[in-house]
């Protein structure tokens, strides 16, 4: 990644002054030093913005990165600089690893307070660097988001803007305490839970058409409920319509419960044919093939005429893991009977 190469050069702060970005910084601490250190911060933000293109798991990244625009503190910038330098040295170059490290860089650590006395000297940088290196190695898990639990009373201004991120994969959750927020475990857990719920709500909003514009959880939920009801009604109507057309013979629920090796209806031959042809129908709207299927079906109606058997292989598309899995599932069932 070119960005990592850039980070290496950014250790020489002098050249990077020109690369002060358009991202507005807090002008509160506009000393030359912080100007220098803002550059690695920008790098961190770039990296974070990079990761924001990734699936929604990382969406929290984006929001927290935007909040980091207001980082004034020297400590944090120093910390981030050290972590960014870790990127170049760290062995793992996977993008999840870098995002993990970049998220580590968001942490405000208290250790650098001691090193703050001589921020410009590189040996100081190497100290948090070694620390972060060990931490990066320790937390080197895919998708692992780690925060440090620091219930310290010393909360810098930057901590206020830092949003806690969730660890969904790691067995423990380290949460950064925010300024002015309670730090006991209950509220932390509560906050983590709330973040989880908000993430899921966001996903639902994307799923339901027209929900993006609505603001406010209650209305969004109403919309979601409405949508689910609509879909259920649609399914009901369409299935009744189809049932009216296709006479239903011998609907055997034994098909559905794999533990039972019940006698299955003969009409399983189409279930083998169907998944294969349905794979072509993936872009829905391929009407001609379906007409052929229907003709095929009506010819053999007495043998196959089951609606459910008919539907089941089609619904193999519904398996979101992969259609291949469901096809193999069907073929397994067939083997069971034969």
């Amino acid at each position, binding site marked *: 990644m070119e960005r990592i190469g850039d980070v290496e050069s950014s250790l020489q702060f002098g050249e990077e002054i020109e690369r002060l970005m358009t991202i507005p910084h807090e002008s509160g601490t506009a000393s030359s030093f912080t100007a220098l250190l803002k550059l690695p911060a920008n790098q961190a933000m770039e990296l974070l913005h990079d990761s924001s293109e990734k699936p929604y798991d990382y969406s929290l990244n984006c929001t927290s990165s935007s909040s980091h625009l207001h980082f004034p503190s020297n400590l944090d910038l120093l910390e981030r600089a050290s972590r960014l330098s870790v990127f170049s040295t760290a062995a793992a170059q996977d993008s999840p690893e870098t995002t993990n490290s970049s998220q580590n860089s968001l942490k405000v650590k208290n250790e650098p307070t001691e090193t703050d006395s001589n921020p410009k000297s590189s040996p100081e940088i190497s100290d948090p660097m070694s620390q972060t290196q060990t931490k990066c190695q320790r937390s080197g898990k895919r998708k692992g988001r780690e925060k440090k639990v620091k219930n310290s009373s010393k909360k810098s201004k930057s901590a206020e803007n830092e949003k806690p991120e969730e660890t969904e994969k790691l067995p423990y959750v380290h949460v950064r305490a925010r300024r002015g927020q309670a730090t006991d475990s209950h509220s932390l857990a509560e906050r983590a*839970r709330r973040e989880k719920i908000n993430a899921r709500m966001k996903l639902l909003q994307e799923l339901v058409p027209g929900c993006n514009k609505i603001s406010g*959880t209650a209305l969004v939920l109403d919309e979601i409920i409405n949508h689910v009801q609509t879909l259920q009604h649609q*399914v009901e109507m369409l299935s009744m319509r189809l049932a009216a057309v296709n006479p239903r013979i011998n609907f055997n629920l034994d098909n559905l419960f794999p533990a039972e090796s019940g006698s299955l209806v003969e009409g399983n031959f189409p279930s083998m044919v169907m998944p294969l042809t349905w794979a072509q129908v993936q872009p829905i709207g391929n009407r001609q093939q379906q007409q052929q299927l229907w003709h095929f079906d009506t010819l053999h109606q007495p043998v196959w005429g089951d609606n459910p058997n008919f539907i089941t292989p089609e619904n193999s598309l*519904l398996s979101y893991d992969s259609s291949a899995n469901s096809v193999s599932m069907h073929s397994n069932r067939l083997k069971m009977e034969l």
Partner: protein
Amino acid sequence: MVADASMASVVGYKRAWSRAMLWKIRNQSRRHGLLAKKSNSHANRLRKSKVVKPKIAKTENFDQASELRKLVPGGEAMEYSNLLEETAHYIKCLTTQVGIFDELVKGEIVDI
């Protein structure tokens, strides 16, 4: 009911709502005497995957949550965050199923 059964069977036991739906259908069909056999091993497996009642109910949006629980199969016994996830998956499945049915109906009209 049939469409639900087929949809749930394809998803299998990977999702809470599909488990709940299959469980419900199995019970219904047992009552109607449609099932030839009873499978106890599966029943045990389903029992293990049943979840306890939610300990924490999110206080805001409580009405909508209860409404949603009625809609999504198996939603009664889930926590709120799980409920939202199950709803998302359920919506996806329903949407696909509606699409498939639409195509079927379009094809059907010609045949009759």
